[in-house]
């Protein structure tokens, strides 16, 4: 067991996987010699050689398209898109190809592939280094979408993703790379070395896809969150003095409906939180499934707290970001409603 940052944990997942399975290859923009702009692949080229970890041309469709071809060969590519904002030139290959090859070929060809990408804001990245596109992936049948919130999960989930026989989108909340960020941008962030979830086994282990984790048990209201918003919700609950049950979804597709329903049926209230823009965000789906599964248990309308329906503005980052104040207000409001 070691203390790791989320970056180290992600690297360790790839390292373990490459060591265990010759078929695992890693590539993407700047991931080879340099080890990635966030250093997630540092040292892998040195250890496994340039044939298994290499720099790619700047062409996201090429990265994903070639990875699809490799995957159908039997290799297991784990590729990096430098920022989630840059996945869109490859969206055709993901949504129309990777997602459907197993189905359309009746299992003749399959695409065991992971597409990793840093997601979310909070680093003054402006509109092109801050987006959270998870809802777009969740709408595509055939993809799985994972969003870890801490080093332990990040490693275990990434190993599961690499070992999964279907294409997995692995979104890494970049604001969490070095510590759990609760939205209080004016306060120092605890580093992962001082956080229990920074305890990460050096060897192989998995965290299953499709299982949520309850981060905080509570009686009053269920908060559905993932990635950075888990910590924002924790801070909000504490500050608002609401006994919230905070569920970290971890995988948004497949979704752990069992855990969600059990919690909402217990609390009778629900707040949904994400950083992505509101309209047609994953929060809408969460509201829909909670309504479908728990309507008669709901004592108040579900509230969602999300990014606004504008591009992510550079200077107004903290006005845009759904921080503890906004989430806390929602918690209080959902408690008042009846």
């Amino acid at each position, binding site marked *: 067991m070691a203390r790791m940052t989320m970056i180290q944990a992600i690297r360790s997942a790839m390292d373990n996987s490459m060591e265990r399975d010759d078929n695992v290859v890693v590539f993407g923009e700047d991931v080879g010699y340099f080890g990635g702009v966030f250093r997630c692949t540092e040292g892998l080229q040195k250890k496994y050689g340039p044939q298994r970890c290499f720099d790619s041309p700047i062409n996201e469709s090429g990265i994903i398209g*070639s990875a699809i*071809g490799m995957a159908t060969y*039997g290799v297991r590519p784990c590729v990096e898109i430098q920022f989630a904002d840059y996945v869109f030139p490859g969206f055709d*290959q993901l949504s129309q190809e990777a997602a459907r090859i197993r189905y359309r*070929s009746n299992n003749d060809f399959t695409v065991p592939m992971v597409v990793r990408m840093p997601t979310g804001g909070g680093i003054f990245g402006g509109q092109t280094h801050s987006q959270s596109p998870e809802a777009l992936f969740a709408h595509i049948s055939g993809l799985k979408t994972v969003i870890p919130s801490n080093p332990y999960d990040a490693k275990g989930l990434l190993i599961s993703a690499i070992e999964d026989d279907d294409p997995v989108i692995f979104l890494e909340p970049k604001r969490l790379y070095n510590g759990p960020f609760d939205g209080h941008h004016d306060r120092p962030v605890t580093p992962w070395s001082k956080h229990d979830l920074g305890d990460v086994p050096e060897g192989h282990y998995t965290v299953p896809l499709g299982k949520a984790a309850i981060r905080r048990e509570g009686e009053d209201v269920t908060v559905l969150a993932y990635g950075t918003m888990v910590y924002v919700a924790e801070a909000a609950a504490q500050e608002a003095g609401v006994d919230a049950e905070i569920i970290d979804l971890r995988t948004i597709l*497949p979704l752990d409906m069992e855990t969600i329903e059990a919690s909402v049926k217990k609390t009778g209230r629900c707040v949904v939180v994400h950083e992505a823009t509101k309209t047609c965000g994953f929060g809408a789906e969460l509201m829909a499934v909670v309504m479908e599964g728990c309507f008669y248990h709901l004592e108040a309308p579900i509230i969602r707290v999300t990014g606004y329906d504008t591009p992510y503005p550079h200077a107004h980052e903290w006005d845009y970001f759904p921080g503890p104040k906004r989430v806390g207000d929602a918690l209080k409001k959902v408690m008042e409603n009846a």
Partner: protein
Amino acid sequence: MSDHEPLSLYVPEPEFRPGDEPDFSNVSIPEAGSVRRPDIDVKAEDIHDLAYSIIRVMNRKQEAVGPWADLLNDEQVQAGLEDMMRVRAFDARMQMAQRQGKTSFYMQALGEEAIACAFAKVLEPGDMNFPTYRQQGLLLSSDYPMVDMINQIYSNKADPLMGRQLPIMYSSKKHGFFTVSGNLATQFIQGVGWAMASAIKGDTKIATSWIGDGSTAESDFHSALVFASTYRAPVVLNIVNNQWAISTFQGIARGKAATFAARGLGFGIPSLRVDGNDYLAVYAVSKWAADRARKGLGPTLIEHVTYRAGAHSTSDDPSAYRPKQESDAWPLGDPIERLKNYLIKRGAWSEARHVQAKEMIETQVAEANREAVKNGTLHDGPHVSARTMFDDVYKEMPPHLRRQRQEAGV
């Protein structure tokens, strides 16, 4: 106000439209045998001219001539002729089946049969094609069962793809035929990735990617060239230039300059043009390219120059946008006629034998069709159970799909 002359947008137009008399006499076509045959380890910059010429083997006297000739014996050529005839007969039968309502859709390869049929012969077991929807010749020249193809086209209960895919979007890993996509060009880079994987694993298999002239405009054509050239992937990149993309002539994808093959030169990829209606030339050039890939010399780009003699698909009527006689006026002739005449000239075939072969093939096709019809057709069924519609979205069915299947009551 500006001192300059006003600009105007240039919009390329084909030479002939319905009502025009097509005349290709000004198109310069190199003589058969006239284009040199470099060693396979030649550098791209030393053969730029081959991207602007056309490699041809069969001359007007129906002889095979020049440095690209004499790679196949008569028996092999006879088999090749029969392969092409099989594609044509199959297409004709399926075209009719669509008209009869047995399926929703069909696409012929009429006039282009030489390309896939000859190419199939340079591949080895384990190699993988990443085809478009017009390379049925690859399957029909190998031992893939015709009845399975028809089952797929009819989406019937024996459809290997469970009724999930459009007709003709075959898939057969075993026969080196990657699952065809409806989205153009995506397979071109996927084939490069597959070839890269073979190289990463230290294997010996090669890939081939296929694309139409119109689809070279798509971005994944570029992705493929970038990745193939950078990593020297063992892949043959085939452009089938059949002059038309639905109603759009190739000049819209190409502009009115250079050639499609020339697109490879800027990447340092050896690039050749070949007479796609000349079975012997296609075979020779394809072999040259496959050998390069197999020897670790990297990618080759081939532009197969041909003509789409039929409609784009059963949903299309070309008389709306090109002269009916254009196909006949097209200067490269018909691939089946040409190969037949070559064999006859050599005394290795005859009109009688041709008629006989045609009958035999048509009988085979009809039999396969009868066999397939027993398994059902699109509108009359039977199909595989609707329950299977929920399978194989993922390896294991996630709970939400299980729930949806239950709701569907299938």
